[in-house]
Structure formats: structure tokens, C-alpha cells
């Protein structure tokens, strides 16, 4: 009567030992998370580096737009100046 109980207890204890061993091993394995946190930091730094890649294009668009606006303003100014040169003598003549 007592022998089967002892065998069952022994087996149960062995299973518990194995469980603890696996528990500890898995815990150690998961401690490799440092690598992942390093990856996170690296990629966060790289975000800023890649921002420049994109900002450049928007700057070009603004630059080109300003240049075109400037050119348009110059043309308008020239035209207005010509009109003034033509109209002012006529107005002065009739006064």
C-alpha cells in the first residue's frame, strides 16, 4: 500500500523539478530582450535621419514656387511701369 504512493510522489517531484528547470531556462532565454530594445533605440534614431530625406522635396517646391511668383511679380511690375509711362503724358496733356 505504501510503495505505490511513494512512487507517485517521486514521479511528481521529478515532474516539478523538470518544470522548474524549464521555467528558469525560458526565463534566461527571454532575457535576450536587450537586443530588441537596442533595435528600438536604433530605429528611433534613424527616424530623424530619414526625415531630411523628405523635407528636401518640400523645400524645393517652395523654392520653385517663390521663384515663379517672383518672376510673375517682375513681369507685372514691368507692364504696370510701361502703362504708367504711356498714360501719364496723355493725362497731363489734357489738363
Amino acid at each position: 500500500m505504501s510503495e505505490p504512493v511513494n512512487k507517485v510522489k517521486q514521479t511528481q517531484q521529478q515532474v516539478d523539478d523538470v518544470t522548474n528547470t524549464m521555467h528558469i531556462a525560458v526565463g534566461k532565454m527571454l532575457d535576450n530582450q536587450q537586443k530588441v530594445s537596442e533595435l528600438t533605440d536604433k530605429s528611433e534614431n534613424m527616424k530623424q535621419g530619414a526625415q531630411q530625406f523628405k523635407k528636401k522635396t518640400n523645400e524645393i517646391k517652395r523654392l520653385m514656387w517663390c521663384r515663379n511668383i517672383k518672376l510673375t511679380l517682375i513681369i507685372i511690375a514691368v507692364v504696370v511701369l510701361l502703362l504708367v509711362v504711356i498714360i501719364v503724358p496723355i493725362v497731363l496733356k489734357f489738363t
Partner: protein
Amino acid sequence: MNKNNKSFNNEESVSPELTGSVMFDSTDWIKLKTLQLFSIIDSFKISLFLDEQVTLVIDRQISGPFSLIFTLQQLNERGIHNLTYFEDLKVTDKTKSIIFLCRPRLELIQKISQFIQQQKQNSLKYHLIAIPNLDASSNYLLESEGLLDYLKIESYDFGFIPYDNDLFSMEIGDFYSRCFVENDNYQLNSIGKSFIKLQQLYGPFKTIVGKGSKSLIISEHIQQLQTLIPPIEQSKLKTLILIDRTVDLIPLLCTQQTYQGLIDEEIKISNSQSIIIEKDIEIREQVLVSPPTQEPKKFEERVVRIEKEKKKLPLSPFSDLFYQQVKDLSFSSVPTMLYLNAQSISNGMNELKKSNSQLLSLPEIKKLLSKIPDVNKKQQLLELHTEIVQELLKRVNSDDFHQKISIEFEMLFQMSNNFIGSNGNTASSVLDFIENLIIRKKPMYQVLRLLSICCLTVGIKDQKQYENILKSFIHVYGIQEMTTLMRLEKAGLLGNNNNNNNLKFKLSSQLFKNFNLIIDNNENSSSSGKENDNDKLKEYDQVYQGYIPLITRIIEEGQKNKQQGWFNKSLESKLNCIDQPFFIKELQTTSNYDINSFTMVMFVGGVSFAEISSLRTLKKKYGRGSGYDFIFGTTSLINGDNFLKNL
């Protein structure tokens, strides 16, 4: 040797983004190609006994595509035990037969003939498999050497080689220079034959649409051979779009800005399988330093020397989930994706840790252990891509790179906003920048690419200015590069505005306006607030940062109208700006077509990765089943540098 012929893993992996889509299955195509070559080898009647070994001699140029289709194990089953290159030709004692597998180039044919002359006393059997077939000059050379009796000749066509789930390439490296510059239409036959084989396997096309003279010739080939296709109940292919390279050369010469394109541009993807990174490794040694005073001796670390180490990284579009997600995005979005993936892996690790501390029994530990390899695999992939992105950021963050992109976009932007007199301003600023690059001896093909873009878009109106650029170019890079400039002029990439014959591929500004090739992002640029990370990922049209290739616009407009389709008259009138034939052909088929039928886009003359990415974004933009499920075919995968080199 084994590294070059590593096994090809074609298992399609399912990613969350691609779960709902129907992937084009290229395994059938690989099986067909494998059976074709093995039937050729079987026709040599090679004995399969173990004491008779066969040596396969491969052209180094095609060893990459070869390894994508065949594996070493398959070759061993057929009795081929030795693999070697033409440079390492030698005979082992057990070799009874030799198979030469090469494209018929004259230097290789000469090597074959010399080898056979040397080994005449040995009673060896010789076989030649020519890809795609033996041409007249090689045949004449073999005949004059008297070797046709010794050599049994077969032809084998690689046809389309799958590089990705939706990408086939024929890898004809010199196609553009032969077909478009020298006007030799010989290689168009193999393209037509490859399409016939593709239709025999997957079903016939219903419509063939094309733009360009070479595409017209290919479509005529396909129409003639259409009777060879057996009737198939359900066809997977609906539309074939053939586009010549000469329709639009600009996106090829511009700097690619997608992740995959940048890797190909800066590091060079070889056969879409691996890349090689050169790293500077500091070798430190402890040096005994004895100062003049009689203090105790100290050890100091000093950098003694710097060595360069070549590191080979695997880069497989088939099994790399992260690469599949990221390769088509603009490079500015890739670090964000890296960060998000790193966070998700970190969260996964944390969850595993928590569940580990709560475990009670062995079955639960078993479940947990089965999850760990997946997380580890993801972590390795992420480390790989972090390394690649770091390497790319070094090159991308230099001033020259920024300035190059600025100049390119300035030229393109000028085409869609044609103000009075500002053409000259842009051209002069571009030429100043090119002059600056020449003086600082930047890589030659960078300068040539910028110069070609300038000639094809804004144009150089002043003859003296153009000649000054060429003079300084020859002065810096040497008189031997004169032939390069002459070839480029003959190809139509360089030239003055006055010579209308040379610049036949010059785009007009009317074309830019018709197709709206430059996106106006006034809304984005006017917002002063910070952009969210998610907003950047949604900008799928920004493959070239505001410029959409003409080919993408043509295909988008052609596929958009479901009923009219390519018979839209406004599209045809818009395409009249390009001085090349446009054709639409309906084929006689009995097959059924449904919403899952694919559209095949064939680029005759080559394509770059960024152009493929801009077409893939159409699928993401419009969704599946609306005519944007593309399969891409091309004569070769190129970028701007090797395009100019092959001219």
C-alpha cells in the same frame, strides 16, 4: 561554388497585409522550366551510373538566374555532380561528359574550342546548351574550328525568371543597346516565345495593349503564334500591356527613392537574393607605451589599421515578411516601420515574459517554447534590416545626395510649370551643379545621368554651354570616355536642343500637364504642424517624392475605365504627344475571365525597382479586383548606372 547555387525556397509566406489578396503562383512556371532543361539533358543519353560523372560548366553571367530555378539536389539526381565556371575549367578523373551552359558569346565559344582541342586524347562527350539559341557567328566559329562533330548543340530558353511573387525578368543585359540603339530585332523572338509559353500554362490573354515600335513587333509575334495555345477553361491572364523603354526614360535615370530601389542604387542587389556590404573594421591592438619618465608602463589601445570586409547579407523577397511590407515604401518611411516592428517584437517578448512567470505545468511550457522561434526569427530579420538602413543612411545623408535629388526634382518641376524665361535659369543652375560634380571627380555615371535628365527635360539651348560641359567632362575623366559620350548621343540621351534628330526621346511639357505627372502638395507643405507617422505611410504616390512616372499614369488611366478601357479616345489623343505607335488588339479566345484575372505589364528594354513600386501602389490605392492586380515582366532589372554602362 555552393553559395552561388544555394537552394531556392519558393514557399509563399502569408503576411497580414497580403492575407486577402490572390498571389500569382510562380511555382508552376519554375516546374515547367526545370522539366524543359532536364528533358534536354536526358536527350544527351547520359548514363546514370555512379562511376560516370557529368560536369556542368556555367557562364558566370547566368549562374545567378540559374540558381533561382534549379537546386543542387535536382542536378545531382540527373547525374550532374560537378559545377564549375568557364574560368575554372578542369577535368576530374571520373568525368565522362561535359555540358557547357552559356549565352553564345564569342569569347566563351573560343574557350570551349580551346578546351576541346587540349582534351582530344581523352574520350569525353561534349554538349553545348545555348541560351536562347546558337547564333550565326558562334556557329561559324565552331565550324571553322572543325568542332561540330565533337559537340552536340541544343538550345534552351530561360524565358521569364521569377524574381518576386509578381515579377519576372529575362535578364537580357544588353537588350537595350542591341534592340533600341542598333535596331537589331533578333531578341524580340524569344520574348514572343516566352509569352506563348506563359499563356500555355496560365491561359491566353484577352487584350494586348502597347506603346512603342518594339512592343508592336512583339504583339505581332504573339498574334501569329496564338494558335499554339490550347483552349483553357479559366484563364488567369486578361490583359497584356507592352511598353517600350523609350516611351519614358526619365524615371530610370532619376534616383530611386524606395527602399528596394535605394538598395539597388547604392549597394546593388544581385539576383534579388543577396547584397554585399563593405565594412570598415578597425583592428585594435594593445601597444606598450613607455613614456620618458619612469612611471609604470601603460597599455594603450590604438587603431593600427583599417581593413575592409565584405559581408554578404541574404535579402529574399519571398521569405522576408518585413521586406515585403517595406520594399515599396519611400525610404523616409522605412525607419518608422522599423521602429513599429521593433516595438511589436518588444511587446511580444514582454508578453512571453509575463506568461512565463505564471506557468504551472509542462504543456503550457511546451506551448510557450513553440512561440519563441517565431519571435527570434522576426528579431533576426529586423536586425538585418536595421543594419541595411544604417548603411543606406550614411550615404543618403550626404550633401551631394540631397543636392542631386533637389536638382532632379527641380528639372521635373520645371516641366509642369513652364514660366517665361525660367527655363534658362533652371538649365544654368543644373549645368553649374554638373560642372561642380565634374570638377570634384564624382562617379562618371552620376554626372551622365544628371546630364541626360537635363537634356531630356529642360534641354540645353546654348551650344557653347553644352560644348563646355563636354570639354570639361573629357578633360577630367579622360579622352577614352569620348566613346561613351558618342554612344550616348547616338542613343538619344545627350544632345543639343537644336539637333532634333538626336533628342528623339525628349518629353514635352504638354505631356507633363496632360497626365499630371507632378503632384501639387500645397496642402502638405502649407501645414505648419508636425506630421503624424501614419500620414506618411499613406502617401503611396510619393515613390519619387512628388513625381509619378508617365508609364504609371498611362496604365492607371487605361485600366480605370472598366467598360471603355483602353479604347478611350482622350487617352489616345494624350498619347499622341509621344511619337511612337500605340495599338490595341483583341485576341480570339474561348476562355472565361473573372475578377481575379491578372494584368501583365511587360517593359521592353528594362525597368527599375522604383517604377515597379509605383505601379504596385496603384493596387494598394484602388484595391483588388479593379484591374490593378499586376504581374510584371521585363527584359532586365536595371538602374540608371548599369543602364548607361550597357549602352
